[in-house]
C-alpha cells in the first residue's frame, strides 16, 4: 500500500478527444447553417463579436425511457424525480432554473444539455465555403487583378543612361575587371614582372598603349611596392540604374447595395435583403483583398446613404426602380471604374415597379452590364403573401425580357444570365431561401 505523487505528465488525451468532439459539433453546425445564417443576432449584431449558437451536446443514442407524444396521454408532464426534505404533497420544492417558456418548446427541451458553441462570422463563412466545396476560393476565383501605378522602381542595370542614374558600384566593378585584363595584356606582351606592368599602367593613368610604350622604354623605373588595383573606365564600362514604372496588382471589389424603400417594403422584406447582403459582402471579403460597400436607397428617387440608414430608411411612397440602378451606374462612372474594381451591384426590391418606367429599369440593367460590372444581383424579396401582383412583378419582367435562363434550384427560383450577361435574379420568399441563394451567388459569380 502506498501513497504516491502522481507524475504530472498529462496524457493530453482529454484535450485531443475534446477537439474531436468540437469537430463533430462543427459538422452539426454545418448541417444547420441554412438556419443559423438567418439568425438576427448575427445579421444585426456587432461584426467582430463571437456568435453564440446553441447546439445540443452530442450524445450517443440509446434506448431510453421517454414520451412518444408530447402532451399526450403518455406524457406525465415535464420532468420528474426523487427528492428529500420537508413538505407534503402539493408543496413546491423548487423552480426550474433558466429561461421562461417559449411557445412550442415548453417542457420539451428541459433537461436536455445545450451548450453554446461560439463562432466568428469568419469561421461561419469558412464553414459555408467548405460546405459548398469551395475551400480555397481565393485560388479558384479569377478575380480581376487591377494594376495600380505606385511610382517608379529600379529594376536592374543598363549600359547607358543619364549621369544621375550612374550605378557607382556596378561601374567600379567593371573598371577593376578592365584593370586586370590590361595588366594581363601588358604582362603577356612584355614579359615583365606584374609589379612593373602595374607601375607602367598607373603612370599612364590606365591608357594601355601608353603603358606598353612606357614599359618598353630603356629608362623605365618606378618605386611601386605592390599591386594596388584601380578602376579603368571606358564608355563601355559605365553602368546605369534601369528604372521602370511601379505597378502593383490589387484585387479589390465594391458592392453597391441598392434597396427599394418604397411603401410596400415591410420589415421582413428588408430583413431578407439585409441578411442576403450581409453574407454576400462577407463572402466577397473572402475573395477579394478589400471590399468597399456603398449603399443606395430609392423610392421615386434614389440617393446615397450609409449602412446604418440603409436598412432603417423609412418608406416614402412610390417606386421607380430604375433610379437606384441609374445612380449605381453614375457611381461607377465617377468613382468605381470597372477596370479598377470588381463591381457587384446588389439590388433588393419586392418587384413592385411602376409600369410606366419599367422599360427604363431594363435599360439601366443593360447599361450596367455594358459598363462591365462583375455581377448584377437581383434579390426579389417577396414573402408568400405578396402573390397577387406576381404577373407584372419585376422578377417576371426580367425573366421574359433579359437574356437569362429561368430555373428552379434547391427550392428557389433563379434567373441566370446567359454568356456575357452577368445577371443573377433570386426569389427570396423566406429566410430559408437565403442559404440556397448564397450558394447560387457563389457558384454564379464564377461562371461569366
Amino acid at each position, binding site marked *: *500500500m*502506498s*501513497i*504516491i*505523487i*502522481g507524475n504530472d505528465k*498529462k*496524457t493530453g*488525451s*482529454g*484535450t*485531443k*478527444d*475534446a*477537439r*474531436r*468532439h*468540437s*469537430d*463533430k459539433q462543427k459538422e452539426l453546425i454545418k448541417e444547420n447553417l441554412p438556419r443559423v445564417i438567418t439568425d438576427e443576432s448575427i445579421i444585426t449584431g456587432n461584426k467582430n463579436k463571437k456568435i453564440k449558437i446553441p447546439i445540443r*451536446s*452530442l*450524445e*450517443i*443514442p*440509446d*434506448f*431510453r*425511457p*421517454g*414520451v*412518444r*407524444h408530447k402532451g*399526450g*396521454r*403518455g406524457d*406525465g408532464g*415535464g*420532468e*420528474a*424525480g*426523487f*427528492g*428529500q*426534505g*420537508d*413538505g*407534503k*404533497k*402539493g*408543496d*413546491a*420544492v*423548487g*423552480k*426550474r432554473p433558466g429561461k421562461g*417558456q417559449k411557445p412550442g418548446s415548453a*417542457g420539451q427541451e*428541459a433537461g436536455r444539455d445545450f*451548450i453554446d458553441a461560439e463562432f466568428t462570422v469568419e469561421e461561419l463563412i469558412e464553414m459555408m465555403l467548405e460546405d459548398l466545396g469551395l475551400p480555397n476560393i481565393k485560388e479558384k476565383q479569377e478575380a480581376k487583378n487591377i494594376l495600380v501605378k505606385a511610382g517608379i522602381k529600379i529594376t536592374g542595370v543598363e549600359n547607358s543612361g543619364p549621369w544621375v542614374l550612374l550605378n557607382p558600384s556596378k561601374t567600379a566593378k567593371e573598371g577593376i575587371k578592365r584593370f586586370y585584363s590590361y595588366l594581363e595584356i601588358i604582362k603577356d606582351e612584355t614579359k615583365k614582372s606584374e609589379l612593373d606592368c602595374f607601375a607602367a599602367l598607373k603612370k599612364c593613368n590606365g591608357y594601355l598603349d601608353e603603358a606598353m610604350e612606357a614599359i618598353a622604354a630603356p629608362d623605365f623605373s618606378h618605386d611601386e611596392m605592390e599591386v594596388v588595383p584601380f578602376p579603368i573606365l571606358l564608355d563601355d564600362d559605365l553602368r546605369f540604374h534601369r528604372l521602370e514604372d511601379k505597378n502593383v496588382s490589387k484585387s479589390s471589389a465594391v458592392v453597391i447595395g441598392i434597396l427599394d424603400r418604397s411603401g410596400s417594403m415591410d420589415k421582413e422584406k428588408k430583413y431578407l435583403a439585409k441578411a442576403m447582403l450581409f453574407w454576400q459582402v462577407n463572402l466577397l471579403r473572402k475573395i477579394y483583398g478589400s471590399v468597399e460597400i456603398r449603399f443606395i436607397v430609392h423610392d421615386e428617387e434614389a440617393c446615397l446613404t450609409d449602412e446604418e440608414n440603409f436598412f432603417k430608411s423609412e418608406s416614402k411612397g412610390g417606386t421607380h426602380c430604375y433610379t437606384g440602378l441609374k445612380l449605381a451606374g453614375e457611381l461607377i462612372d465617377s468613382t468605381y471604374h470597372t477596370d479598377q474594381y470588381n463591381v457587384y451591384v446588389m439590388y433588393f426590391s419586392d418587384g413592385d415597379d411602376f409600369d410606366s418606367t419599367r422599360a427604363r429599369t431594363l435599360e439601366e440593367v443593360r447599361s450596367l452590364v455594358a459598363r462591365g460590372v462583375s455581377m448584377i444581383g437581383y434579390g426579389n424579396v417577396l414573402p408568400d403573401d405578396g402573390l397577387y401582383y406576381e404577373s407584372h412583378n419585376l422578377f417576371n419582367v426580367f425573366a421574359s425580357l433579359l437574356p437569362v435562363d429561368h430555373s428552379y434550384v434547391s427550392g428557389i427560383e433563379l434567373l441566370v444570365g446567359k454568356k456575357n450577361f452577368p445577371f443573377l435574379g433570386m426569389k427570396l420568399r423566406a429566410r430559408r431561401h437565403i442559404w440556397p441563394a448564397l450558394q447560387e451567388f457563389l457558384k454564379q459569380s464564377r461562371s461569366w
Partner: protein
Amino acid sequence: MNHNDIERLKLIDKRVREIIKENNLLTTETDFEIVEPERMIEAMAYRFPSNFSHWSHGRDYDRLKTIYDNTGSGIPYEVVWNFERPRAYLVNTNPFPLNVIILPHVYAHVDFFLANSFLRRGRAVADIANDARRARVRFHQYEQEHGVKVIENIIEAARTISRHQDLDPFAERIDEDLIREQLIKVEQAKVEYLQNLNGAAAGGFKDRQELEIEIARIVYGIRLLEKKTPPLPDYDLLGYIIDHAPIAKKAYVEDILKTIRDQDRHLFFNGRTKLLNEGWATYWHVRIGRQLFAEGLLTPEEHGEFITFHAQVINADRKGLNWYRIGVVLFEYIKEKYDKGRFGDEYENCKDPVKKMNWDTKAMKGTEKIFQVHDMYSDAMAVREFLTDEFVHQEQLYMWQEATNPITGETENVIAEDDPAVIRATLCKRMAAGGLPVIYVDDGNYDGRGELYLRHDSDGELNPEYEGAALENLFYLWEKPVHLETNEVLTDIDYSPTSFSKRIVHTFDGKKHKIVDA
C-alpha cells in the same frame, strides 16, 4: 500538498489501516495517487485511468474541465477503481483534512469491492484496468488502418446497446447451439414419452388422433427450434451482435465490440451497488475520523473541517437522492434496528406505537446485519427490504413532478407522491435494470431474411428521438434491416377502455424509418 503533509498523511494512513483491520474490514494492496485536477477530470471522462480515444470521452472531459475552470468545483475529491489491485486518485488541491476523510473512505470502498458478491463478480469480468490501457494503443492502430471515422462509428454503435446485458449479471454467455441442443432434447423427451404411452388415455388424451396431433405439434416445434436464433430471448444485445453479425467477423471490429462489452459489464456492477457502496464508505469514514481525533492524530481545527466536509457530503438533496446520505443513514438504520431487536414477527405484529418506539431487546445483531448486507446485497435488494415506511418518513423522501404554478405561471417542482410503497416500488424498478428499458433479441433471422427483431416488453414508452438514431446505429452493426417492437400510449382518439397502449414496430432499413402497428 507539501512534503510534511504527505509524511503526516502516510502516518495517519498507517493508523487508518490498523483501525480498518480491527473492525474486520478486508484490505488488499491499494495504490493511492495524488494527482492534478486535470488528471482526475480525465479519469472521470474516460471512466478508467486510461482508455481508448473517442469524441464522447472528449465531450465529458471538456464539460468537466469547463465547470472546474469556471467554478473550481465539479470534480470528485477521490475516485477508486475496483481493480485487481485497487487504485485511488486523490486530487492535490484537496485540503489536508479532506484527504484524511478520503483515506478511510477509500479503504471502506476497497473492503466493499472485496466482500460484496456483485463487485467480486464485476472484478472478475476481465483484467479491466490493463485491458482499457492496452485498448488505447490497439484502437489507435485500428484508426490508422481503417480510418478514425470507421472506428468512431463502431465504438458509438457498440455504446448504443452495451448497457443492455443479460438480466442475470452472474450468467456467463452460453453458446446458443448448446442452449438449442438442450431445448430440443427436452422436446424430444416429450415426444418419446408420448410415443411410448400405453394408450392415449394414459396421457389424458381423448383419442389416438388427439395424441398424434400433439406429437406432430411438438415435432414441428422442434423443427422451428432447430433454425431459431436466438433459441431463447437474448438480452445481451452486444453479445448477440458479436456472435452473429458478419461485421464482427473482422478481428478489429470484434476486438472493439468485446472491449466495450467487457467495460460495461464491469461497470454494471458498480451501478447496481452505488447506494450501498457509498453508504458503507461514508459510514466508516465518519467513525474512523472521530477515532483519529480521539487519538490525537487530528487537531480540533482539522476535525472541525473534517466534520464540515462530511456534512457537505451527506447533505440532503431537494431535487434528487444523495446516495451518500441515503446510504449511510440506511446502514445506521439497519444497525439500530438489529441492535435493538426490531425485527421478526413479534415486532412487526406489535400494534402499540409507544411500545414499538421504545422496543429494545438488546439483541445487538446490528454489526452482523450490516456486514451481511454489505456482503450479499445489491441496491435494489436493500431498498426492497430496508427502505421501510418508517425510513421513508424519517428521511422525508418524496417524488416530485414539474407543474405550472397557476398564479405565477412559473414551472415548479411539486411534491407529487410521498406514499412509501410507491416510492419503494419506483426506486426498485429503476435500480433493477439500471433505469434502462428491458429489450431483447427476439429473432436474428426475422422473416427468413436475416433481419434483426428486438422486443421491448417492459412498461412505458421509449424516447422516440433517441430510438431512431439508436436503430440506425444498430443497423450499422447488423447491416440488414432492424426492427424494434415497443409500446405507444394510445392517443385520445383511439383510446380504448381496455387498454392504455398499443404495440408498434419501428423499422430502419438503412435508408428510411417506418413505424407501423404490430
